[in-house]
């Protein structure tokens, strides 16, 4: 009896000890437990507040837009930044010692760009610094210079540097646009091929014709443009060297010669030819001149574009009855339809990263630019205007330019690639169409 009682009490003691240990362990465990973890999976759905402080100037500056204004406009156009208007700034520092982070913090700014411009005998030199207001750190400090007649290039360059410092992506503000304008009276139309800065400034006409000019396409090095011109009375593909103005025919076959697209290495060109009776996709080796037929179908196959890697080909085919986007993993391989759910999906333009493909998409009676995630097949509409066409993606994949109508006139609009912000380029003259975003060149 006593023994059992003892053993019981011993057991009870053991029990208590065990419970104690468990509790201790529990506390240890709870105190040693992984500390609180908060996951942030979504960011602000708005533009980053950034203050571009007007640069201090020493020496005469060329007339026209100030460099800081151009930078502001660039950043605004990207849709990713929301520059603070200079009137709201509490101070106008031009170097680090003058930056009071608390002030900028109070103004809700995340970044502050300050700089100084010096005119050194016709060369404008810029010293600029970018600060992270919250971290109170300088994340960029450089100098750059340009001839005083080329301060826009200097400004775009600064925009690119700022953009890259903040986003980690190269900026595309120094790239060029090609587009076609149509002007003139009803009986006398003038088509002009333009090349301009991406803000539409400094536009130059490279070709003028009474006949339509279509589908300008940039060579990967940004030195040449391919396009379709009807100047000979029928569609012919030309390659136009921008520096010299020298033009060569890339395709002048009987029937249709259209929709030129450079390969990423610039060695070959995709095009649509109907020389064999039906519109098919061909690849022309620009070195050897050899032409290879990639599609062979009774339907129309056209508007080919290389994917980001230069391996596969997107194109439009109406083999299903209406235009849809198809993809072949390599030239000549069997094509796979990738768009569904709409009667009209055409003119695919992949981005440079292989993440998305953009195309003209009909919904109800409107035409929009849609973006398709190539991994998830998720399709989102990125433009809202209604008669949208000719999408072209910026080389960094962050912006998209397309043609649309505004007040009955064709205009070009730049949106951030997710459709967040829209920025319409000023119409230089007449109707603007067929934009093509040039590559980043260094």
């Amino acid at each position, binding site marked *: 009896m006593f023994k059992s009682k003892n053993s019981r009490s011993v057991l009870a003691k053991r029990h208590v000890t065990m419970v104690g240990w468990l509790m201790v362990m529990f506390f240890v465990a709870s105190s040693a437990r992984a500390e609180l973890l908060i996951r942030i999976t*979504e960011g602000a759905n708005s533009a980053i507040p950034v203050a571009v402080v007007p640069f201090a100037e020493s020496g005469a500056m060329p007339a026209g837009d100030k460099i800081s204004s151009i930078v502001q406009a660039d950043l605004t156009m990207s849709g990713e930044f929301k520059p603070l208007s200079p009137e709201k700034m509490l101070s106008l520092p031009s170097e680090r010692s003058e930056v009071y982070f608390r002030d900028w913090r109070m103004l809700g700014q995340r970044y502050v760009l300050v700089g100084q411009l010096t005119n050194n005998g016709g060369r404008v030199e810029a010293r600029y610094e970018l600060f992270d207001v919250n971290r109170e750190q300088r994340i960029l400090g450089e100098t750059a210079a340009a001839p005083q007649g080329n301060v826009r290039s200097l400004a775009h360059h600064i925009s690119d540097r700022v953009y890259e*410092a903040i986003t*980690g992506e190269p900026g595309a503000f120094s790239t060029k646009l090609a587009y076609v304008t149509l002007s003139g009276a009803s009986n006398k139309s003038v088509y002009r091929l333009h090349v301009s800065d991406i803000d539409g400034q400094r536009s130059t006409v490279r070709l003028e014709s009474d006949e339509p000019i279509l589908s300008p396409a940039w060579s990967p090095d940004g030195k040449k443009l391919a396009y379709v011109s009807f100047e000979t009375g029928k569609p012919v593909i030309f390659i136009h060297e921008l520096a010299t103005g020298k033009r060569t025919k890339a395709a002048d076959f009987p029937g249709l010669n259209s929709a030129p697209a450079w390969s990423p290495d610039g060695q070959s060109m995709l095009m649509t030819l109907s020389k064999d009776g039906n519109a098919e996709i061909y690849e022309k080796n620009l070195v050897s001149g050899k032409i290879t037929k990639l599609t062979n179908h009774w339907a129309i196959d056209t508007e080919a574009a290389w994917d980001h890697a230069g391996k596969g080909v997107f194109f439009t085919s109406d083999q299903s009855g209406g235009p849809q986007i198809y993809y072949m993993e390599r030239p000549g391989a069997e094509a796979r339809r990738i768009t569904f759910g709409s009667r009209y999906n055409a003119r695919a333009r992949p981005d440079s990263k292989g993440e998305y493909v953009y195309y003209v998409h009909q919904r109800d009676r409107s035409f929009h630019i849609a973006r398709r995630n190539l991994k998830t097949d998720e399709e989102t509409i990125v433009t809202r205007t209604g008669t949208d066409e000719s999408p072209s993606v910026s080389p960094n994949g962050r912006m998209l330019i397309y043609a649309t109508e505004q007040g009955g006139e064709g205009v070009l609009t730049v949106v951030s690639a997710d459709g967040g912000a829209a920025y319409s380029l000023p119409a230089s003259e007449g109707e603007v169409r067929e934009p093509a975003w040039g590559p980043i060149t260094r």
Partner: protein
Amino acid sequence: MKGHERVTVNKDSISLKSPVAMSLGLHLLIVVVALAGWSWTNPVQEPEPRSISARLISPEPKPSPVVDEQDQRDDAQKRELAAEQQRKTADAERKKAEQEAKRQAAEKAAQEKARKIERERKQQEAQAREKAEQQAQAKEAARKKAEAEAKERERQKAEEERKRQEEAKRQAEEEKKRKEEQRRKEEAERKEERARKEAERKRKEAERRLREQQLNALAEEAEKARESEARRQREAAVAKAREAQMLTDSEKYQALIRDRLAQAWYPPASATENMVARLQITLLPTGELQGVTLVSSSGNTAFDNSALSAVRSLNRYPVPSDRDTFERYFRKFTIEFNPKRLR
């Protein structure tokens, strides 16, 4: 109620004086004895035996014979009778003497004359008297003798009676003694039995007590255990409730912080969905940021910086006012930036 019943039963038993009563009485006695304690080493005061009349006789027989009352009465009568006779005899003698004197006086004249005769007669009388006296004496002796004889007889008879009675008494005594002995023996046996039973009872009682104690101890222990368990559970429940409250608070403030940071974070253009930056931040109880360290880089400087910038952009973190909750969850915690939905 029960007590009342018992009282009634007792009354009945007393009035009945039946064996049941005896038995009950005995039991009651045992109970009383039991209640009075266990001083069994002292002999129990025995009740006086009732069946034996020994009390009427003096407990120690006297060596002198006891005269019966009747005998004494008879004796007295005899003595009275004898006295009477003596008195009568004396009376008659006195009268005779008186008559003699008278006759002598009357005869004085003739005294001389008669003196001789008288003397003769006197002589004769003396002789007669002497003779009568002798006769009386003989008679008395005979009577006395008879009396003594009777007395002796009587005495012998009384003695016999006494002896008989003594014998009877002795026998009674013996009987009584025997009975007493037996009673004692029985009593002793009973006592022994009782003692044995008592011992047994005690043993059992002790055992029972022990068992009870053990049971009590066990029950107590169980009770204690239960109590401590209950207390533990109660405390655990309280702790849990507190914990839950803290967790609820914590979750609330986590959500607030998450919201604020989500609004403050600008994932850079170069961000991809698989980028993860982990930052450990330490806060002051006021919600002010005390420090932040990048504990795990995304591999993309712009991404890391965007996270750091976001964390530093909040002037004051929403933190619970409850100090424990703050210390537990928000003094130091990790924020993970990982865009699931890119623009």
